[in-house]
């Protein structure tokens, strides 16, 4: 609840300029679900859990890696006219 509230306040202040990076970043953060998948795949409680956990790690990791890379690429492109070289 507290997190949602803080999140709400923080996100509301993100300018429309950066809405696409915002979405790709929250997506990457959301992939923290990987921790649940790692425990499943690692505990080996059942074959099903291991298989599903492993696929889940693949899906989440690709989101983490892809999400951070593309957010960074996008943000690198945003330049102010003051700092820009002529």
């Amino acid at each position: 609840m507290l997190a949602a509230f803080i999140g709400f306040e923080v996100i509301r202040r993100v300018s429309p300029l950066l809405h696409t990076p915002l979405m790709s970043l929250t997506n990457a953060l959301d992939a923290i679900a990987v921790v649940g998948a790692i425990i499943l795949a690692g505990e080996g409680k059942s074959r099903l859990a291991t298989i599903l956990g492993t696929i889940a790690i693949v899906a989440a990791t690709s989101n983490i890696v892809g999400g951070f890379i593309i957010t960074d690429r996008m943000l690198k492109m945003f330049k102010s006219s003051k700092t820009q070289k002529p």
Partner: protein
Amino acid sequence: MTNLPGSQYIIEVLYFVAAVLFILSLKWLSSPATARRGIFAGEAGMLLAIVGTLFHHGIVDFKWIAIALVLGTIIGVPLGNVAMTAVPQRTALSHAFGALCVTLVGTAEFYLRAPNISKFIMSVLSLEVILGALTITGSLMAAGKLQEILPQRPITYKGQNLVNLGFLGIAIAIGVVLVLHPDRMYLYPAMVIIPLIFGVLMIIPIGGADMPTVISLLNSYAGLSAAAMGFVLDSKLLIVAGALDGASGFILSVNMSKAMNRSFTNVLFGAFGQEQVAVAGGQEARPVRSATPEEAAAILAAANKVVIVPGYGMAVAQAQHKVRELYDALSKRGVDVSFGIHPVAGRMPGHMNVLLAEADIPYDKLLDMDQVNGDMPQTDVALVIGANDVTNPAARTDQSSPIFGMPILDVDKAHTVMVIKRSMSPGFAGIDNPLYYLDNNLMLFGDAKAFVGNIVKELSGGGGH
């Protein structure tokens, strides 16, 4: 858990630090100047959380974890390096991946725990799986439409909403039954499959112009289902991350809906574009004025203040680099050039900003709707590139128009409007645009990229050749 309190304590601390880093990460994203620091905070948090999890004492086998992490990285790197124009599809695809992860984990947890599962856990698990499953197929459908593998026009049929709601209702009912009777495990597969079908049905009636709202909404669902998973696994970190994602998706979808003057339910349940096609067909005989690149260049060169309004057409034509050349050529002549960006221009929130930033246009020249509209009467030329509905004055004046009430960019108030467009065909919403018949409007027919290129050639050549 009591046999290794030390490692458990370390994990808790690492998770807490990770959660704080995630929030800081989003906070720094509020300004382009600090945004990249935000990425590093996010990455650091993620790394801490994953390393912390590997210390989890229950983990006995690292083989599959390692293979999966490597495989995920191999898939993730190309996904992170797609062209900027493909960002909306990529985002939709990543919603599907995120939801897939959550749904799989939920499924595994169910079969590990059921039938000895508490009512609370089963409730959040149902929520997690239903939201997750519909987000998987919904996002795949959205990605398919954005990639144009699937038709972008809304597909509707009679009783569609009833069928859709029926599917969702059945899925929720199954969830409720499972909460009350967790031993009826045979019901579980249905609780996954029905939302999967619902996800497909939900996106079928949604047209290209509604994509920004839908992507945001799916974003929100993916986040909420991850937060629900956090409750299932009793992981505060997951709840925080999921809530952040859910909240950001929610805020964006509300923004998008507002920008189109439509409610959530309207976007989800009311595909538009059906009856208006007929209206548009009857009005095509009205006269329009058109101009050549030479004439357009002359008008632009004589202007003091130019506002460029980009839309999805600019993205399709990949014209952003040519637009940058135009920006340079005009700026060199002392023309004040800025960009007016409608919140729903393009196919996802902030789509146009990213494309223009890719073309090296400084972000302080990218203005939002309110900033631009105030200056519009003092603007000499408004140049519309591949945008349609967001400039349609019918939204202000014509009560019968399906987009009536939607906030628009008031390009018609500029002294001269020039619209680069392939043909007179209506936009994705299928609505005729009266702007094109106004006296101060000039149509520039052609491919956005080629046309802007020709204008630039004229400007830089100084009319010499």
